[in-house]
């Protein structure tokens, strides 16, 4: 494919000077004239990007992935000419429109209609042009009855729909999209994906920053993985998505998810010990010892497996599986074992183990990350599970 290059980034670096004591008053300027000229008492230089180079061809759907704080958003802002690179060069051919955030410039005191015109102007549309597309915008957002209400009376979902509806009208050659999918409900996300498919069909050039590997796999032709201000790899989206997941499994870090913290609680009348994970040919086995310090009449042992995002994948307990509880005597030690098939995509998974009693109302031991395991597969799907599936038939 010999499409022309429309975005060319050459050796771009960006550093921010972070003064420990910011000089922002005139008094400082007079009291410490030299220091303030140098920009603060001690300033720390933060390298947000370091020697970034890549080219994007016309019609490409190009992903930029990386952890929080890796420099993705800075790069996007440099492409959008919001930030100036400290060194290096960026050249862009064609009209570029950034979607750094939905609803930029929306004013809560204005009506929906007024906001459409305001937001449209920021996207480069004159009043006349918006007049022509106004009805389309409103019907796409499904907000006909609300357009003369103030935006502050809209629900956040309605605001997002309106913003998205305006944003998608942009007549750009190149679109920069940053995490737009992070907001909105499933219905809205489907609309986003439809829009992406349309962009792909129209052969638009898109630069797409995301944490969502499903979307990256699904839409991006190529992607760049950025880690600690450098480009680690530029490759097809499948490879990059896998490398991205490996990045997390290597360091044991989880994706930004505050709900999955290494927590454990309960009264510990009985508790888990010696939790072991064993990977067999076609399944995973979790073994543990239950140590009872006090007797429990109706213990229920539970298990739940979640992915690195903290999304539960499945779970069950002995009550569901066997419908009966075997009493634990004080001082007793009992081995338990869970076995389940490998239905996972590549990535790291966490196992949550529980012991409940009194008709599953009291917690004896609840261990959020009792164990973890890593799956590496050659083929992943953009869905929650990836069970072995047999396909017969041609093609």
């Amino acid at each position: 494919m010999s499409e022309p290059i429309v975005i060319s980034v050459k050796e771009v670096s960006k550093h921010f000077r972070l003064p420990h004591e910011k000089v922002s008053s005139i008094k400082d300027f007079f009291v410490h004239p030299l220091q303030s000229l140098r920009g603060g008492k001690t300033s720390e230089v933060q390298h947000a990007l370091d020697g970034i180079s890549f080219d994007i061809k016309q019609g490409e759907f190009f992903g930029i992935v990386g952890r929080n704080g890796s420099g993705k958003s800075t790069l996007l802002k440099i492409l959008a000419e919001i930030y100036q690179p400290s060194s290096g060069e960026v050249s862009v051919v064609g009209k570029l429109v950034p979607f750094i955030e939905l609803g930029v410039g929306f004013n809560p005191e204005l009506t929906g209609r007024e906001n459409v015109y305001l937001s449209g102007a920021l996207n480069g549309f004159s009043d006349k042009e918006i007049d022509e597309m106004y009805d389309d915008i409103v019907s796409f957002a499904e907000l006909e009855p609300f357009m003369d209400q103030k935006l502050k009376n809209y629900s956040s979902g309605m605001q997002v729909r309106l913003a998205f509806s305006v944003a998608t009208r942009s007549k750009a050659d190149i679109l920069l999209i940053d995490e737009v999918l992070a907001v909105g409900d499933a219905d809205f996300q489907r609309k986003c994906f439809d829009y992406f498919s349309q962009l792909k069909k129209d052969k638009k050039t898109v630069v797409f920053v995301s944490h969502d590997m499903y979307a990256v796999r699904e839409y991006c032709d190529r992607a760049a993985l950025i880690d600690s201000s450098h480009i680690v790899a530029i490759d097809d989206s499948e490879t990059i998505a896998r490398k991205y997941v490996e990045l997390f499994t290597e360091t044991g870090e989880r994706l930004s998810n505050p709900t999955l913290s290494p927590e454990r609680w309960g009264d510990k009348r009985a508790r888990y010990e010696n939790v072991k994970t064993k990977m067999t040919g076609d399944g995973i086995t979790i073994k543990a010892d239950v140590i009872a310090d006090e007797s429990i009449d109706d213990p229920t042992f539970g298990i739940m497996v979640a992915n690195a995002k903290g999304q539960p994948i499945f779970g069950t307990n002995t009550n569901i599986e066997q419908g009966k509880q075997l009493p634990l005597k004080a001082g007793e030690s009992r081995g338990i074992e869970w076995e389940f098939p490998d239905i996972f995509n590549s990535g790291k998974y966490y196992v949550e183990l529980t012991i409940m009693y009194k008709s599953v109302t009291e917690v004896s031991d609840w261990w959020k990350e009792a164990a973890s395991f890593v799956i590496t597969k050659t083929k992943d799907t953009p869905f929650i599970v990836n069970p072995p599936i047999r396909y017969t038939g041609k093609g």
Partner: protein
Amino acid sequence: MNTLSKLKQKYRYSLIILKQLVITDFKLRYKGSALGYLWTLLRPLALFAVLYVVFVNFLRFGGDIPHFPVYLLLGVVLWSYFVEVTVNGLTSIVGKGDLMRKLSFPRYVIVIAGSVSAFINLLINLLVVFGFMVINGVPLTITVLWLPLIILELFVFALGLSFLLSALYVRFRDINYVWEVLLQAGFYVTPIIYPLSEVAKRSEAAANILLLNPVAQIIQDARYSLITHETPTVYGAFSLYWIIPFIVVAVVTVVAAIYFRAMSPKFAEEI
């Protein structure tokens, strides 16, 4: 025509944004207040009423100046415009920080938008001044033709200062307070409430020094052109002395433009 349409194309985006920002400013100003846009007229009129009662009725200022109430009102209206533009201009860039971190559009549009909406208010207020002129029976003379140029000078000076102040405010947050104090001092060193002729009676030199301030020069010129020729202007001083306030305006505007241009690419990350 060709160059005009080219220019229009080049500044198309800026013009579209400028228009919307001015419209939005109009819609949002006085939002929720019962009298709404009437406040644009009521504020300078209220200030005028206070000054009139105190300085004309009680202190007998401007005794021998013809049409002194209109003379006073014109000064108040022009000064209020200058204050409005510079005070709003100063915080305009920092106030729109959110927009600037998300979009790349020419930064100067924000400052100009504030200045344009204040300018529309000024025009409305000038209509009120004309109304008072009719009531007071002020005769119109040919010198009124100077007025548009005088107003243009005020527009340029206030806009230039706004560019300078808004860019400085990004780095030095004290400017806010400094400017407040300077404006307060400016209200007294500018011949708004007192007739400059009173100063000239005591010291010709002092009156001339006060006229070096471009706002003083502008207010006196406006009064001369519109209300009475019996008011001192900077041209009454010796030879080319009158050129100094114009040089001040030019220097401020050029320095402001250069500084703003140099600083604007960094606004997004420094705010």
